[in-house]
C-alpha cells in the first residue's frame, strides 16, 4: 500500500491536523510557563518582571492551596467511587434479560447528555433548594428540618450532582465490557462449582478490570477539570473550591495571572500523570 506517492500524500494530509494541534498545545503552554515566572497583574501595573519560582512557592503556600487539593481529591475520589461501584452493579443488572431493556438503557444514559450548567442548576434549585426544593419537601414530609444542601453539605452535594452526570458513562462502558464476556466462561465456572459471588470475583471482575481502569482514567481527567457545576452552584464557596476553580479565581477574578499560571502548571503536571497511564493502555490497544 505504501508507495512514495502515497507516503508523501499522507504526510501532507496529516499536516493540518498535526500543525493545528501543535500550535494549540505549544503556544498557550509556553505562554503559561512564561507568565508563571513573572509577576503579572493586568489590572494593577501589568507585567512587573521576572520573579523566578516565587509564584510557584506562593501558590503552594497560600492558605487556599491545601484545602483546594483536598477538595479536589474528595470530589474526584467520591465521584469515581460512586460511579464505579454503582456502575458495575447497574451494568450487571442491565445485562440481565428483562422487558424493555432498550428503554431502560436510554433512561440511564440520559444524564450524560445534559449540559453541565443545566444539571447543576436543576439540582441546585429544584432539588436542593432549602425552601422549595423537592428534598426540602421530602424532609418536611418526614418531619425533619430541610438541609441547606449547598452550604451545609456542599462538597457532598457537588459529588452527587457530578456523579449523576458520570454514572451513566461508567455504566455504559462497563455494560459494553460485560457484554463482551463470553458466557461460556461463566458456565464453565458454574460447572466447576463456583457460586455467583465467586463467579463475580474470579471471572466478571477480572474481565472488567481493563474497562474499570479506562473509566477511572478518563473520568479522572474530566473530573479534575470540573468547572461549570461549581461555577453555577456555590461559586467556589463553602469549601467547594477545587484546584481548577482556585486557578480560575486567581486568573480571572483576582487577575493575578502570574500566580494563576503557576497553578496552571501544577494542574498540567497533575493531569499528565493520569494521562500517562491512560495512554499506556490505549497504546497497547493499537498494537493488535
Amino acid at each position: 500500500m505504501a508507495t512514495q506517492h502515497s507516503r508523501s500524500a499522507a504526510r501532507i494530509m496529516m499536516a493540518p491536523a498535526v500543525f493545528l494541534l501543535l500550535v494549540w498545545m505549544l503556544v498557550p503552554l509556553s505562554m503559561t510557563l512564561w507568565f508563571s515566572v513573572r509577576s503579572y497583574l493586568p489590572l494593577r501595573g501589568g507585567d512587573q518582571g521576572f520573579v523566578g519560582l516565587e509564584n510557584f512557592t506562593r501558590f503552594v503556600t497560600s492558605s487556599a492551596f491545601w484545602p483546594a487539593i483536598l477538595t479536589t481529591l474528595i470530589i474526584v475520589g467520591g465521584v469515581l467511587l460512586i460511579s464505579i461501584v454503582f456502575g458495575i452493579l447497574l451494568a450487571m443488572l442491565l445485562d440481565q434479560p428483562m422487558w424493555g431493556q432498550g428503554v431502560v438503557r436510554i433512561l440511564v444514559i440520559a444524564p450524560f447528555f445534559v449540559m453541565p450548567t443545566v444539571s447543576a442548576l436543576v439540582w441546585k434549585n429544584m432539588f436542593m433548594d432549602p425552601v422549595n426544593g423537592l428534598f426540602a419537601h421530602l424532609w418536611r414530609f418526614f418531619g425533619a428540618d430541610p438541609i441547606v444542601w449547598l452550604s451545609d453539605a456542599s462538597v457532598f452535594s457537588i459529588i452527587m450532582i457530578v456523579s449523576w452526570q458520570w454514572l451513566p458513562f461508567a455504566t455504559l462502558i462497563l455494560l459494553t465490557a460485560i457484554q463482551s464476556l463470553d458466557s461460556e466462561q461463566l458456565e464453565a465456572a458454574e460447572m466447576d462449582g463456583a457460586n455467583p459471588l465467586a463467579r463475580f470475583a474470579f471471572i466478571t471482575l477480572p474481565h472488567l478490570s481493563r474497562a474499570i481502569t479506562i473509566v477511572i482514567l478518563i473520568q479522572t481527567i474530566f473530573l479534575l477539570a470540573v468547572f461549570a457545576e461549581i461555577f453555577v452552584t456555590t461559586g467556589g464557596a463553602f469549601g467547594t473550591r477545587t484546584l481548577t476553580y482556585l486557578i480560575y479565581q486567581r486568573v480571572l477574578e483576582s487577575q493575578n495571572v502570574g500566580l494563576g499560571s503557576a497553578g496552571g502548571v501544577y494542574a498540567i503536571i497533575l493531569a499528565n500523570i493520569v494521562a500517562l497511564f491512560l495512554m499506556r493502555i490505549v497504546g497497547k490497544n493499537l498494537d493488535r
Partner: protein
Amino acid sequence: MGRITLDKVQKAFGEVEVIPPLDLTIEDGEFVVFVGPSGCGKSTLLRLIAGLEDVTGGQIRIDGNDATSVPPAKRGLAMVFQSYALYPHMSVRKNIAFPLRMAKMEQAEQDRRVQAAADVLNLSDYIDRRPGQLSGGQRQRVAIGRAIVREPSAFLFDEPLSNLDAALRHGMRLEISELHKRLDTTMIYVTHDQVEAMTMADKIVVLQAGVIEQVGSPLELYKTPRNLFVAGFIGSPKMNFFDGAEAAKHDAHTIGIRPEHLTVSTTEGMWKGTVGVAEHLGSDTFMHIHPEANPSETITVRVGGEFSATHGDTVFLTPASDNIHRFDADGMRMG
C-alpha cells in the same frame, strides 16, 4: 498493446529483501502465470507492476516507456483482487463504470461500455444490485467487468479464484481463458493452483523466495524442469525423487519420475513394494507405495482408470525409461 519489461527489478521491505534483482519480459497479448509457494513474492511482484508498491531498484517498462515512478492510475493496467475489492456502496453498474467516470468519459459512451461488459460477463440481470447482494462468482465477474471496461493494456489478477468453490472455479477459469482469447490483451495471473497455471498459461513463471526458477510454456516446464524445485513444484501428484544407488545407475545425483510415468504390475517389474494407501478416483487411481528396498519412503503412482489394490498388497513398479529426469548435485537438470 501491453509489453511489460522488468529490468533488474528489486524489492525490499525495510531490511528484508523479498525480491532480489529480477529480469522478466512479458510479451504483448501473452497470458503469463506466476506460481510459487506461499510467501515467495508473487503478489509483491504483481503489485510492483501495478504501481501499488515502489520498486527498491530497477526499472519497469510498459510498451517501452519507463513506468517505474508512474502512479498506478496512470499505468493503464487493470487489476482484479483476491477479495474482489468491489465498492460496496455502488451498484454493479456504478462499480463497472467507475474507471470510466474517473477517466471523465462521456456518459453515453460509459453506458455503452458498461452494457457491453455486462453482456459479455452475463451480469445484465444484476446490474442494479449492490455487491453485497451477489454471490461470490457474480462478484468475481463484476470485478472482471470493472477491469475490462477501460480497455487496459494489461490485466493483473491476484489469485482471483481462490475464494470460490471448486465448480465455480472451473467455470470462471474457462471464462477468463475465453476472455483472453477474445480480447487478446496481456494478462498476468497469480495463483498457487497447479491446474490453473497449467491450463491457462501461455507462459509460466515459477518463483521461489523472489527468484525466478524457470520461465516457459506449461509443457516445457512439465517436460524439462530446469531444476529440482521446478520439477517438484509442477505436476500433480508430485514427482518422485530417488537419490543414491538408483540415481547412480543413471549417472545422476538425483533422478525424478512422475507418478504417471510408472507402470504397475502385480506380477513383475523393476522395483518391488507394498501398497500403503490407494486412492480410487474412478478416472484414476493414485497409489502410495513403500518400496521393499527402503520401506520408509513412499513412491506415488498414478494409474489411469481403476486399479484394484488395497493396503498391504505387493506390487511391482517399472519407470518409463525415456521419462526419467536427471539432476546433478546442485539440483540442476542434466542432459
